[in-house]
């Protein structure tokens, strides 16, 4: 088993499962997600 590649794939799979669980896009996980505050408009 290629350990480094296995760890890499495992990290992707966990990120994928977490993003799906949270309803995020994975790119939002990387950028920290869009946690809008009160009265804050984003994408403007």
């Amino acid at each position, binding site marked *: 088993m290629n350990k480094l590649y296995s760890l890499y794939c495992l990290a992707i799979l966990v990120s994928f499962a977490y993003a*799906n669980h949270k309803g995020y896009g994975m790119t939002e996980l990387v950028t920290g997600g869009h946690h809008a505050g009160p009265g804050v408009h984003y994408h403007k």
Partner: protein
Amino acid sequence: MADASATTPAASAAPPAGGVQTFACPNCGGTIGIRAAGLTVSAVCEHCHSIVGVDNENLKIISKASAAAVRSALPIGGRGKLFDVEWEIIGFMVRSDPTEKWKWCEYLLFNPWEGFRFLVEAEGHWNFVRMLRRNIRGGAGVPVISYEDEIYRLYVYDGAKVLYVMGEFYWTVKVGEKVMAADYIAPPYMLSMERSGQDIIWSQAVYVEASEVASAFGAQALPGQSGVAPDQPSPFEPRYKSTMMTCAMFLVALIAVQIAGLFASHSQTLYANSYMASPGEKGQTVISTSFTAPEDTVNLWIHAFAPVDNNWLELDTSLVNLQTQADYGPLLSIEYWHGYDSDGSWSEGSRNASHTVGDAAPGNYQFTVSPDAGAFEKGNPQSFEIEIKNNVPIWSNFWISLVLIIIWPAVYLFRRRNFEVQRWSNSDYSPYASDDDE
């Protein structure tokens, strides 16, 4: 190479030191030393480079060589341990293809208990060669042969000639002697056939790292390596299968997680409406409504559609969670353009726009929409539709993960293939020939 018949099965041990028989060269009178006395058939005088037949007491000159001395990387008389046997170098020859463009060096090794072997160096790559005592089908340009459960592919089928000799040999060696040769490869092994008249000799080579040769014979400097040797083991081969297996395993896991997610998520429409906005409503709140996101909500998906035609629509939305006062409303931009030019028809943009709010909390939401549209500038109304759903599957996650998992083995395969292309670059029988031509 010629057939080595002088082998005596016995314990592998170092040859006795100093067992050199000497005689005078019939050409120059210089001393010629014989290390494999009784087995050596011809020897080269190191003083005048004449090749002398030494198979009986009547020494005769086979040829008066005039070639300038070639310095071998490993010295005649040098000893080294390879494959748990100590070998002594007793002969050295330089050979080439008929054009003399491709040259290689062959060292004849001798151990009194093991017999003869060859150490062959080409482009800084080394092979340890033993003669086979059996004939193998093929060798006349047959593309593939099988030997000891290995499939060997034809690499080269060409003439070979002797350019230079030094030391002693167990056959009558001649400078300029030509044979037909074929090499078949199954890295790290190579099968070689040499045919001279009716005589066919097969030998099997195994690739040896240069560092191993240097260490065995105590060589300070060996010829520099270039390119990939025909039977050089690929550094990508050992992990090839495990990488592919790992890739397949995680792809199955990824698909399983995605399918499980699709079955587990309960998506429902929380709000849907269509509206015809007039120019006077530009920037005004035309929709103001509230809805409740159920407890299992993890995300909200806001989708807008407008039948714009070479026009645009912007919907400034507000989506406020009434418990937390967090506003998730995006600016949804719709524009769709199309037409004809010299290249034919074209179109760009879309009549749809959507936005997904991740990690959306369940609870009550207030949703408002304020439109602005290109149609308003001409005094025309603009219709649009709005839909809000929860728990929508995010397929981009699946595709991003898929690409990330595949990209590693893809790069691995690319590098592995490049290595093989390089290996076959000197062969007329390359399976990558069409790629090389590109």
